[in-house]
């Protein structure tokens, strides 16, 4: 009985040690997933915010990005292709200040992480689900993110829109005149 309880105690200690190790030294895939979860939480806001809170949250949002970010978003004229971290911070402040947006919930779902051979760069396919005012205004978009480990953190270097359904250029016409 004593031996059994000792074995159990050792196993519990070992399990705890492994858990602690993985928590503080996660694999790159886990670190990226956590980072994306934090990004979603940072982009989320509920109710009215003070100017200071808005600025701090936008600053925090900017920290998820590299100093220079390459965007390939559709529609093409939405944003410039090359933006700085400061541009993204200002964009976030503007979004959080929109008069019609009371609350905004962002989740980054189903990240598929592909690490480069150097394990310092990664490509991530992720589905962005953004809801404002409950589920009445929902926006779903798959994105491909390029990420790199910069100053010890995984930061986004590129963002590109992924089309789930390809559409050929359409020709509209009048029929059965």
């Amino acid at each position, binding site marked *: 009985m004593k031996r059994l309880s000792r074995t159990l105690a050792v196993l519990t200690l070992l399990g705890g040690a492994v858990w602690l190790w993985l928590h503080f030294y996660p694999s790159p895939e886990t670190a990226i997933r956590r980072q994306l979860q934090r990004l979603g939480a940072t982009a989320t806001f509920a109710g009215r915010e003070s100017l200071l809170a808005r600025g701090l949250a936008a600053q925090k949002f900017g920290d998820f990005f590299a100093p220079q970010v390459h965007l390939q978003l559709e529609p093409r004229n939405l944003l410039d292709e090359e933006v700085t971290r400061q541009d993204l911070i200002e964009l976030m402040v503007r979004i959080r200040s929109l008069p019609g947006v009371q609350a905004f919930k962002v989740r980054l*779902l*189903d*990240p*598929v992480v592909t690490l480069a051979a150097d394990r310092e760069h990664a490509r991530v*396919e*992720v*589905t962005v*689900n953004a809801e404002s005012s409950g*589920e009445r205004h*929902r926006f*779903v978009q*798959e994105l491909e993110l390029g990420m790199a480990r910069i100053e010890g953190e995984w930061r986004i270097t590129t963002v590109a829109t*992924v*089309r*789930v*359904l*390809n*559409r*050929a*250029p*359409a*020709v*509209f*016409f*009048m*029929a*059965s005149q």
Partner: protein
Amino acid sequence: MRAGGVAALALVVFKFWLLPIRLEGASMEPTYKSGSVNFINRLAYWRHEPQRGDVVGVRYSGHSIMLLKRIVGLPGETVEFVDGQLWINGRRLPEPYLHYESRWNVRPEHYRLGPDEYYVVGDNRSMPYELHEKGAARRERIVGRVLL
């Protein structure tokens, strides 16, 4: 022990075979109403490829959110809508599952589906063409067929 077995079985069934879904949006009405619950059979295309008329789940980066659409065009075919009627390879295709009137007049320019592409569209084509999510889905994006 028995409860554990049931839980394990439910986990396997609902994760790897029948994916539960809750529909949202009007693009498949009246066949499938917004708010209804259904399942995607992930093993539906184990032995054969998707067929025309199948209602399928098309995934984003994972299975948390999917598009529910009907396959109307198969690999290599051309697709167009003339006066709301579907034309495949230049011939009109009857669609008995449609209940709403459509006025779409759209010819995807020189559009021919690729060797692994399926054209998917919703049943509610009374919606404006621009607001209706539709297009060519690659085979690897099709998760399975709707169960009910």
